[in-house]
């Protein structure tokens, strides 16, 4: 058989292997690396049905460290996260902006009415367009945005009290002191 033909499999694998190696450098659970330490992408979200104010990305760039939290009434883990967010809001620890992801009209409001509203403002992302720009892979997901409006960190799981005390809290203190 022709030598060249026999080399095809190994060449093919070399190409695939190179992609794998490259892919390894990308953490699938991390935000696309280009967003970390970069300004928050521009977006404008309408209010969810039942509330009157949405927000835009500019509002998150007003010299304050804030959280942008992705949630949906359909999301089980958000249910688990919610009480702690309420605690943060009640203690005025930090401003939390809510991104209501792929929720049918009315569902988000219903959820906040029942469980309480920890959010400063809630934006409607029924189409998932904003979440796509942010590289959201699942809910809940939380972005830490610094004073200059740059994305500094992403949490791709429910925030718990323990996680806050050990990781997120200290990080936010440091960002505030910068």
């Amino acid at each position, binding site marked *: *058989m022709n*030598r060249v033909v*026999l*080399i095809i*499999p*190994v060449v093919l*694998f*070399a190409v*695939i*292997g190179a*992609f*794998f*190696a*490259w*892919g*390894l450098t*990308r*953490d*699938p*659970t991390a935000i*696309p690396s*280009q967003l970390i330490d970069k300004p928050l992408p521009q977006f404008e979200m309408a209010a969810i049905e039942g509330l009157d104010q949405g927000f835009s990305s500019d509002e998150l760039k007003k010299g304050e460290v804030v959280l942008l939290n992705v949630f949906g*009434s359909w999301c*089980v*883990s958000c249910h*688990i996260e919610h009480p702690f967010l309420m605690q943060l809001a009640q203690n005025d620890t930090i401003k939390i902006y809510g991104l209501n992801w792929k929720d049918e009209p009315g569902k988000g409001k*219903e*959820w906040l009415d*029942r469980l309480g509203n920890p959010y400063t403002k809630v934006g409607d992302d029924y189409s998932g367009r904003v979440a*796509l720009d942010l*590289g959201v*892979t*699942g809910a809940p997901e939380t972005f830490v945005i610094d004073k200059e409006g740059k994305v500094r960190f992403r949490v*791709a*799981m*429910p925030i718990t009290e323990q996680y806050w005390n050990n990781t997120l809290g200290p990080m936010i203190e440091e960002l505030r002191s910068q």
Partner: protein
Amino acid sequence: MTPEIGHFALILAFILALVQGPVLFLSAKGEDARFAAFGQRVTVLIFVLVAVSFFSLMHAYAVSDFSVSNVFQNSHSAKPFIYKLTGTWANHEGSMLLWALILTLFSAVLAAQGRAAPRDLLLLTLGVQALIVSAFLAFILFTSNPFLRLFPAPADGTGLNPLLQDPGLAIHPPFLYLGYVGFSIPFSFAVAALIRGKADTVWARLVRPWALIAWVFLTIGIALGSWWAYYELGWGGWWAWDPVENASLMPWLAGTALIHSVRVVERRDAMKGWAVLLAITAFSLSLVGTFLVRSGVITSVHAFAVDPARGVFILMILMAAIGGSLSLFAMRANSLTATGAFVSVSREGALVVNNVLMLVACAVVFVGTFYPLFIDVLSGEKISVGAPYFNFIFAPLASVTLILAAVGTLLAWKKADLGASVKKLLPAGAAALVMAIIVAVIADRAALSGAFAMGLVVWLAGGAVIDIAGRINLFRAPFAQSLARAKGLPGAAWGAAIAHTGIALFAVGAASMSLWKTEVVQLMAEGDRAEIAGYAVTLQSVERISGPNYEAERATFLATKNDQRVLLAGERRFYPVRGMETSEAAIRARGMNDLYISFGANSSGNGWPVRLFFNPLVGFLWLGAAVTAFGGLIAFGDRGRKPAKLRDKKTAPAVVEAAPA
């Protein structure tokens, strides 16, 4: 103390495997019997050591020894005992240890019963196995050690992912691994064949049973996984083209091609390079599947613990195993020359067509699965490839495969008469036509596609029946004689016919589920009624119950149709330790049809969102998979014919001569 014994046994096994590989390679060339004997016997010792290691980890799980970090992270004292045991492999480290256990078991079996193999072939094959074992034990010891201790020991564990606390998922990974790892032996045989520059009918006879048994296990493993997803995940479907599912399907497709092509090598001494390449491909895809997609058993994006050291190590193993074997293939495949002449209209020609179809299907799955990765690397965009892509390509591909599979089994080896074979298939064609007409008349929707699909199914199953009937001279010879012939028919012939029938049965379920499944979503309070597929379903009650380690809502539904009354119960369980919810769908099987109900949380206070499915003929999926696997098992039982020079043509029973399979 027990974990340390396990840890020590694992280190010992690793060192022995490191020594064993080179010893076997050297002794394959030399004549010194002592080194060869050492290399062979140590295979069994390594298996025993890995087994000690595995069971000491299982012991730590059984007694809930939370001083072992792995147990702390994946178990809990309040978990049912059986799930403590299965928890051993329901995590990354433990599942890798199970991988190693199965790998060394297969090596040991090969060493013990491979004496019939040519000496150098056996030693080289075991040598390649030893290299794989070394790589995996190194991976476990250096990056995924399950025996690390915690001090001070925590009071209780963090629990096992509740989705994994299920009988289906408890036995699914071992079967899948038996399949994945089983392909390591054909792989090692293939590499050995390339090294010695010889693959012949003897080689094929040795490879075939291993390829078959791996394929049978993989078939069962995939079916179990699909069945689990069907009743546990509550979405009413059985296959979602999820990367993890695809990862198991790819080696299955390559393995299917392998078991068909190895038969050509065995019977015709041809297509050797091709069979060797397929053996390499099947195991390579198993490796890719095990590692790149599932670093642990848990596959949720958010539970995926990415450890760069692990990823790099995995990639090194992949590069060495796949890159090495394919380079060897590029250099040495030319030495595998065929002796048999090749005519395109023949059994072997049909098997080539099968191989092409299987590999095209495999490539389609591969591209669909890794396309997001490629796009991400090239452009940084995150995309996903959905079920429509796969379904769009798979439906025609499967149709062509089903049509040709029936023809292929009727073609004779060497040189076949296509016209005669097609003529034999006329009854199957007629039956298929009748079936198609019946379906077209009774189907309430998708009548045309349904008629086509069900016609194909009858065609394939009919082909299998005609094949067997022809071989045993059914209706042409006295019945007793046919029966005698049926008994004398080689397992490979029976196996092929049964497996093809299994595929046909499976296709009934797959086609029916994609064409005729009905779904109703409705908000239901207690006492509310829903209608689906002629059933009136009433939500009778929802009550809170407590399980051993979960709290649950149990909903009871009453389904009535005509005068039948059926009670169904489904649950939504909450596992406090992990803070996770799972659902147990309410399923009522009526013959092959399922009435399937799952429900969500009553978050509005007005009722529970209930999803009702009527899944027609879904039972054929599981039946078909089981029959297919059984066919593989029958073929596995066929030890094949003795090499030509050993066979006395005069005394060989005529039926064997006339029985191409």
